[in-house]
């Protein structure tokens, strides 16, 4: 057992898979010599050499295109897109190419790769370097989308993503790189498509992702301590495949559901979950499902403003308390 930061877990997760399989290669901007702009890939160049850990130019289309071509023909690339926001620069590969290759070719072509990127706000980077873009990814059939909230999940889900035969979008949260967590020794392999109940509860279910998992957990503490409300907290972890059964099972026990989302409101992943709950668990509900999201505006940079946008612990507590007491 060791205590690792989320950032260190990224390098360990990639190293675990590269050591296991020579077909796993890693490319991106500043990932090799510099060890990544978030220092999440330090040491990989030294460990695996310049043929497997390759710096690229600032060419996001070339990065994703090359990853795809390599994946189609036998490698298992991990491609880094530095800030999640930059996915928009190479969106063709996310939207048109990688997810559709297998289907369009009637199964002739596979695309086993991982695209990892740092998303999320709270670091005062402004509207183009702070977004949670999981919603940009989950709308395309053919992609898988995961986002770990803890160091151990970074390693386990990275391993699952690399070993998965489909293209996986792997969103790390920049606001979590510094957090620490216990990580067992030895190989860690998790399973895509599994949500985790992090805190059991009886009065309501809070479904969160990434940084919001931590805020939901903190909110649950306070709801219990200050208001006697027992909130179950679920880390959804994998948006595609989605572990609907765990979510519905929880709602069947607590009868109330809240999503805690960092993304702007419209078409957020929580809307899909709420829609599923409404369709399939309507009669389990004692009250309306509630989405706690960022308002539908771009993210501002200044402390005060950004803090007003991203759901805070206070906001989660207040929303849940009011909703349950009304």
């Amino acid at each position: 057992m060791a205590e690792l930061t989320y950032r260190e877990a990224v390098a360990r997760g990639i190293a675990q898979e590269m050591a296991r399989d020579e077909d796993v290669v890693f490319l991106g901007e500043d990932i090799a010599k510099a060890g990544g702009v978030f220092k999440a890939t330090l040491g990989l160049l030294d460990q695996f050499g310049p043929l497997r850990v390759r710096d690229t130019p600032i060419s996001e289309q070339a990065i994703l295109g090359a990853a795809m071509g390599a994946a189609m023909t036998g490698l298992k690339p991990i491609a880094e897109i530095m800030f999640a926001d930059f996915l928009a620069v190479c969106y063709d590969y996310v939207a048109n190419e990688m997810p559709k290759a297998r289907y369009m070719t009637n199964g002739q072509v596979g695309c086993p790769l991982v695209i990892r990127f740092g998303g999320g706000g709270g670091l005062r980077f402004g509207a183009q370097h702070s977004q949670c873009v999981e919603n940009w990814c989950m709308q395309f059939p053919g992609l898988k989308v995961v986002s770990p909230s803890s160091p151990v999940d970074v390693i386990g889900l990275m391993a699952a993503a690399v070993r998965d035969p489909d293209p996986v979008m792997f969103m790390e949260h920049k606001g979590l790189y510094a957090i620490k967590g216990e990580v067992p020794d030895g190989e860690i392999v998790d399973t895509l498509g599994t949500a985790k109940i992090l805190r059991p509860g009886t009065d309501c279910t809070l479904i969160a992702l990434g940084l919001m998992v931590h805020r939901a957990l903190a909110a649950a503490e306070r709801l219990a301590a200050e208001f006697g409300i027992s909130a179950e907290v679920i880390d959804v972890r994998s948006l595609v495949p989605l572990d609907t059964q765990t979510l519905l099972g929880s709602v069947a026990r607590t009868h109330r559901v809240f999503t805690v989302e960092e993304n702007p409101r419209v078409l957020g992943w929580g809307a899909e979950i709420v829609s599923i709950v409404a369709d399939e668990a309507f009669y389990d509900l004692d009250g309306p499902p509630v989405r706690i999201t960022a308002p539908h505006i771009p993210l501002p940079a200044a402390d005060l403003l950004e803090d007003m946008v991203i759901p805070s612990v206070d906001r989660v507590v207040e929303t849940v308390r009011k909703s349950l007491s009304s």
Partner: protein
Amino acid sequence: MARKPARAPGAAVALKANDDIGEAKRLEMYRLQVTIRQAEQRANDLFFENLIKGTSHLSIGQEAIAAGVAAAMKPGDLSFCTYRGHAHTLARGVPVEKVLGELMGRDNGLMRGKGGSMHLTSVEHGVMGSYAIIGAHLPIACGAAWRSQYKQAGDVTVCFFGDGTTNIGAFHEALNFAAIWKLPVVFVCENNLYMEYTPISEVTSVEHPAADRASANGLERIVIDGNDADVVFRTMSKAFEKARAGDGPSLIEALTYRHSGHSRADPAKYRPEGELERWKEKDPLLIYRERLRQFGVAEAQMQAIDAEVAKIVDDATAACKAAPTTSADILFTDVYADGGWAWRN
């Protein structure tokens, strides 16, 4: 067809002495060009019979490039094509029936109707896909070449694209990327003078949209006659040699002309009067028949090839018309690698 036809007398003997290509390779390239021409014409006819829906982009007039490139490729080399990709797919040996079947949405199609005209793919023939978003496949071809380099597999990747592609970002990203990583990839620009409906010269800062950008990436400037399969073959052979030697990518601009419009919907009225006629005088099949004559191939032998191909195309057409339409059973298959489409439990 086994009987050797009588040879034309005269100059052919002298020419043959210096022939680097040889009769067998020339006949192969002739057959490929005839196959493409006849299959494309058939695709056009089937459109007018309403047996092919959607859109379709023909390569009539551009056959020499697909044929010359394919003839210079080895088994295991990979092709990345565009939405105008019937020619390059056929040139790698994919049966006409599979291509027409896909265009017609039949169950015997290359992808059983899931891809359509713009996405022809046959991995077993090294055809790694036809890409319908302009420029998208240049970086993808880099990735395939990277795999070859990394695995020391020895194969080379060819990436076809049109002149219009040279003005999109992915083109420039891919060239730089391939050059700095010295990837075994050959970029083949088919400059048919029009980006869709607009003359490429009106929207491009340089005379040769691909070749004049080569130096920006440290590559040689190569412009060739894309209507002469021999020229294409020779140029490609050199580029393949370079790639296999580990000396990196090449960018080749092949000048050509499409006899039809951009797509099925385009009557090509934007072309100046007489332009099509002038290019028809440089029809790759006319050029190649003359070349074969010069090298002593008898008219009868060419006609025999024409007739063989015609029969193949007719048989393929009949087979496609008789084939069942694509099956509803495959609607939900192969979204994910487990064969299905489940995105949730």
